[in-house]
């Protein structure tokens, strides 16, 4: 395992593994997260070595709890890391804001893994902005290598100022692999103590909060000075040119490569920043000495640009600041976009002459889809069949997880997909606007999402009488992010047996009128249960149906490990009538229509042996291979 190779080794690490390694080198005692792309592998990696190195790791129930666990440990002088995706920070923010007021004792690094271009997210919010709002310093690395070094350093920085620190990354660092040089790890600090001496700082009642606010603002001015000294991370390449480019975080690699490719490195001054909020003002000042024009290259919001403009105004500089007028506000950067921006700024048209094959071929789209054997496909198939048979016109409130793919054909069964847990919460509002007897309201939510943010809105639904059918797509894992365990799995982050908190027990104790668990792979049972459940909803009740079937990828992995035979199904072409129901309504990637015979066939390389298609075929043409 590369991450534990000896100090001095040069290894290839995923950005997230590099962050994990940085935390190990800094001697962390506690690491927490709720999984979320592109942040997941940070804590996944830490979990895989936690026992060996000797620190604590957990998958927390959501980001707020993850942050609180890490924060609590730092109160006792332990170094802790909490990792989350950008929208997860929204969930943690309540406590995060307060943590700036109280400060911390042990170093606390919060990793905010942002996702410009929304590769795996519902928005592309730029969490660098949080620095201003929370008075928490924000840093951004440009590569896996710098991500490791920054993580290692930020624990020291956090302790120096007793302030939490945000390490902001983006998909192209989290999910980039690069060469990283390992350094000597510090022994993990795992034993702390909670001192009662200055206990007041943690008690944010108004009188103390007002005092802490003063301390925070004073601390911020010291941080502003200090970031000017971070020469390892903020670098000025000054060559007395009349123009300067300032590159924030990841933008540095794009800017550097464009300048290098076109022999422009000595034609413009370049300031590389990893301290993003606050920026190192003295260094920025130096970078624009005798300069008339500056270009800020940064992804998404003009965070550095606003600070430079504000500084220019304060200092009375005669400086033209270019930024979002040349660099796109929407979507991630790439070499082409940066090439175009620099070309405009330097007025050098040669930069845009690279040709690529201009081929216009109409390609069929290949959207992500449920895997062969996915329990969610079976549940959606049963749900759709049930809806048709009842001639119902429900409103479907979706949620965040693999099952969000139910919005695609052939199911097309989602009317919303907003945020974690929002299915049930939004459903409560819809029930106040439509009649349940005519338009039943369905909240479709996954198991992990239910634990994360589905419980309070379900309590709300019961308490405030919001009739709905909550259909839980329970595949027993946080599957979309790569199968992390959760409170329903029975396993901890480090693979130890854990207590199960059953969703059905929660639903019963909360007061749902009808609660039933049904096996996802049994279409008739799911249908039958939904039929029973909907009667409660029509009468103004709350029904919770948990469709439970393990993610097939996990089952397959286990079967292979145990060397169990995985059944493979085939279509008996003598029985198949070519009705295409299995393709049009069920749409398993393993089933396709043979162009010559017009009959279905199953790709044995893709079939995972779930056998649900046997229940789908009206002619009994699908059989198991003996």
């Amino acid at each position, binding site marked *: 395992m*590369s991450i534990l190779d000896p100090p001095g080794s*040069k*290894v*290839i690490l995923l950005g997230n593994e590099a962050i994990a390694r940085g935390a190990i080198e800094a001697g962390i005692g506690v690491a927490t997260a709720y999984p979320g*792309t*592109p942040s*997941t*592998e940070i804590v996944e990696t830490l979990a895989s070595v936690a026992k060996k190195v000797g620190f604590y790791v957990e998958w927390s129930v959501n980001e707020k709890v993850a942050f609180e666990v890490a924060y609590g440990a730092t109160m006792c002088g332990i170094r802790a890391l909490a990792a989350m995706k950008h929208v997860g920070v929204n969930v943690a923010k309540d406590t995060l804001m307060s943590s700036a007021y109280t400060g911390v004792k042990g170093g606390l690094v919060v990793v905010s893994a942002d996702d410009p271009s929304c*590769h*795996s997210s519902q928005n592309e919010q730029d969490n660098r902005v949080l620095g201003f709002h929370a008075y928490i310093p924000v840093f951004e690395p*440009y*590569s896996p290598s710098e991500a490791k070094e920054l993580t290692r350093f930020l624990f020291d920085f956090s302790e120096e100022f007793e302030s939490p620190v945000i390490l902001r990354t983006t*998909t*192209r*660092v989290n*999910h*980039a*692999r*690069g*060469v990283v040089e390992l350094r000597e790890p510090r022994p993990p600090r795992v034993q702390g103590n909670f001192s009662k001496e200055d206990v007041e700082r943690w008690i944010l009642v108004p009188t103390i909060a007002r005092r802490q606010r003063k301390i925070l603002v004073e601390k911020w001015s010291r941080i502003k000075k200090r970031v000017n000294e971070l020469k390892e991370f903020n670098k000025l390449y000054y060559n007395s040119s009349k123009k300067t480019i300032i590159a924030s975080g*990841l933008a540095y*690699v*794009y800017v*550097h*490569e464009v300048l*290098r490719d076109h022999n422009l490195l000595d034609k413009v001054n370049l300031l590389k920043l990893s301290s993003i909020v606050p920026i190192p003002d003295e260094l920025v000042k130096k970078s624009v000495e005798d300069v008339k024009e500056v270009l800020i290259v940064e992804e998404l919001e003009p965070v550095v640009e606003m600070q430079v403009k504000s500084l220019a105004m304060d200092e009375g500089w005669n400086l033209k600041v270019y930024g979002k007028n040349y660099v796109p506000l929407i979507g991630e950067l*790439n*070499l*082409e976009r940066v*090439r175009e921006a620099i070309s405009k700024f330097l007025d050098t048209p040669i930069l845009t002459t*690279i*040709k*690529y*094959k*201009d*081929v216009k*071929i*109409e*390609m*069929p*789209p*290949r*959207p*992500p*889809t*449920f*895997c062969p054997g996915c329990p969610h496909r079976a549940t959606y198939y049963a749900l759709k069949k049930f809806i048709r048979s009842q001639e119902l016109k429900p409103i479907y409130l979706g949620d965040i997880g*693999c099952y969000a*793919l139910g919005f695609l*054909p052939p199911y097309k069964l989602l009317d919303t997909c907003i945020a974690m847990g929002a299915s049930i919460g939004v459903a409560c509002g819809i029930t106040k606007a439509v009649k349940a007897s005519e338009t039943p309201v369905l909240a479709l939510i996954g198991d992990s999402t239910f634990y994360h943010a589905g419980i309070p809105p379900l309590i709300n639904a019961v308490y405030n009488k919001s009739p709905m059918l909550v259909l839980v797509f329970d595949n027993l894992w946080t599957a*979309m*992010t*790569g199968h992390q365990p959760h409170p329903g799995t029975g396993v901890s982050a480090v693979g130890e047996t854990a207590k199960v908190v059953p969703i059905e027990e929660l639903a019963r104790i909360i007061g749902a009128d009808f609660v039933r668990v049904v096996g996802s792979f049994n279409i008739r049972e799911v249908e039958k249960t939904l039929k029973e459940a909907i009667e409660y909803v029509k009468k103004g009740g709350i029904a919770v149906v948990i469709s439970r079937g393990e993610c097939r990828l996990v089952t397959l992995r286990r079967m292979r490990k145990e060397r169990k035979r995985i059944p493979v199904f085939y279509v008996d072409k003598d029985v198949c009538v070519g009705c295409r129901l299995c*393709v*049009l309504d069920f*749409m398993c*990637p393993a089933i*396709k229509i043979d162009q010559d015979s017009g009959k279905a066939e199953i790709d044995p*390389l*893709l079939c995972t042996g779930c056998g649900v298609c046997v229940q789908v075929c009206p002619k009994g043409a699908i059989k198991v291979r003996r």
Partner: protein
Amino acid sequence: MGMYRKEKYNVLVVGVGGQGILTLSRLLAEAALNNGYNVVVSEIHGLAQRGGSVAVHVRIALNNAPLAPLIPRGGADIMIALEGHEALRYLEYLSPQGVIILNKRIIPPSVPNVRIYSIDDVIGIINKLGIKHYDISAEEVALKLGKPYVTNVVILGFLAKIGILPIAKENFIKAIRKVFSERVATDNITAFEEGYKYSMGAHKASLTVMKAQ
């Protein structure tokens, strides 16, 4: 290796989620590092991976200058396509002198009523555009070994053989040993050797193609 050496090589690995694209890319990166080069790989995980179209950017530099994570359009020296439709989908990334290693495999997208291309259609289009390509039936090789999941490593062996990247064979093998556990590594080294031995047959393209730049 006696060939013209560029300062950096851009390799785009494309296919369908689940075909082992991330692993292939990772092995290539490890092999490049073993050869003493700087390397960066850009991946997409999560929802986008579920049976969808996947493209991984592998960038190899013979110097230590910072490397951007993404290949620009028109910048890929080599495209390794594990599936036919995906080869066509990402053609705009190929440089005018770029080469395609095409796995002769079609996985129809799970979308109703769309045109499905046959592998001959795909090869026809690539030929018409005048793109150099090497074709391999890697699945067949993997199935003969009784291990369909080593298809990606068969392709890696083939890549090593045709020598369009300045990476020594033993550095690929070293990479396989580094990435996999011992038992899995043995299967994969066999697969790599089978790919290395693979005879290209009729579609044998010119090995001088990289020298043209």
